[in-house]
């Protein structure tokens, strides 16, 4: 079984590094500040006990009041999984750091989130639409998107 690492475990293991960055601790993950995501991702990847070296999936969601990006990681060696979440309150111009420097696996997924939700990832080598064409109006996965149908 791929066991979920609880938020408390991670906070316990990374107490020093995480100081001030954690907004809330949930059963299967932690919610952190967007600006700190790079440092935290590096920590969880390089920490000897956690070894979360495999970025599985990135989901972006529009919660009307804010946008949420959740990252799912595995540790292939320990067979564990862990979720990191980020909330962006600024919906008109959401931006956060890109993880492509650490995992190139983030590249296409971040582009996808940019395309469908309009979140800009700074530091991404190729931040442009991936599925829709240049000039498409709006971001379809926003709840206020209407396609005219």
């Amino acid at each position, binding site marked *: 079984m791929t066991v979920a690492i609880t938020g408390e475990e991670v906070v316990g293991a990374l107490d020093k590094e995480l100081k001030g960055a954690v907004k809330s601790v949930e059963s299967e993950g932690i919610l952190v500040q967007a600006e700190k995501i790079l440092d935290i991702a590096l920590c969880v990847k390089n920490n000897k006990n956690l070894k979360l070296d495999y970025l599985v999936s990135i989901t972006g969601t529009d919660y009307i009041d804010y946008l949420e990006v959740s990252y799912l990681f595995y540790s292939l060696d320990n067979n564990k999984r862990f979720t990191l979440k980020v909330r962006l309150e600024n919906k008109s111009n959401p931006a956060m750091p890109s993880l492509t420097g650490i995992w190139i696996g983030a590249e296409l997924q971040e582009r996808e989130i940019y395309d469908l939700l309009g979140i800009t990832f700074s530091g991404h080598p190729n931040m442009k639409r991936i*599925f*829709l*064409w240049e000039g498409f109006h709006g971001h*379809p996965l926003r709840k206020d*998107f209407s*396609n005219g*149908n």
Partner: protein
Amino acid sequence: MEIRTDSTSLDIDRHEGNLIKELRSSSTKPVTEPSGWLSEDLKRNIFLTTVDNVLNWGRKSSLWTETAFTACCTFEFISLSSSRFDIARFGMEVLRSSPRHADLIITAGTLTWKMAPQIKRVYEQMAEPKWVIAMGACGITGGIFADSYSVVPGYNRILPIDVYIPGCPPRPEALLAGIELLRKKVEKRSFLQG
């Protein structure tokens, strides 16, 4: 013997007599009917028909398909073109990746607006005469994806369609029936229509 102006009436009689003799000697056997006049080889190799029939026969027996396959329906087309359903029976086993060689687009799959210019371009590059079969619900109306923000509701927004084949995906047999319909359509073309 020549007939000259100074010929006597006897000369003329003799001349006529010779003609009779010649005819009689060359007419020992009864005359055959006209088809027997040609040699056996010629007889087997000449057909009489109309230009329309010949052109249409050629066209319908070698409809070459362009590989403009976008989505799921493609697999039923591949099934059709491989051993079990064997589209080679209709001279259609040749898949062309160059539009210059193709006569037919089978629109096997969902068309998105991003893809639409490419398909249109391929269609425009094909030489006349050319045909389009809209395969599958997506090809006809956008099918299950008709509500989507990125899907073209049917190929007929961008191409003239000759035959519609419903299904999601249509079975290979349905596709065969559609192709048969198209062959009938090709048969009815007239040279004068261009």
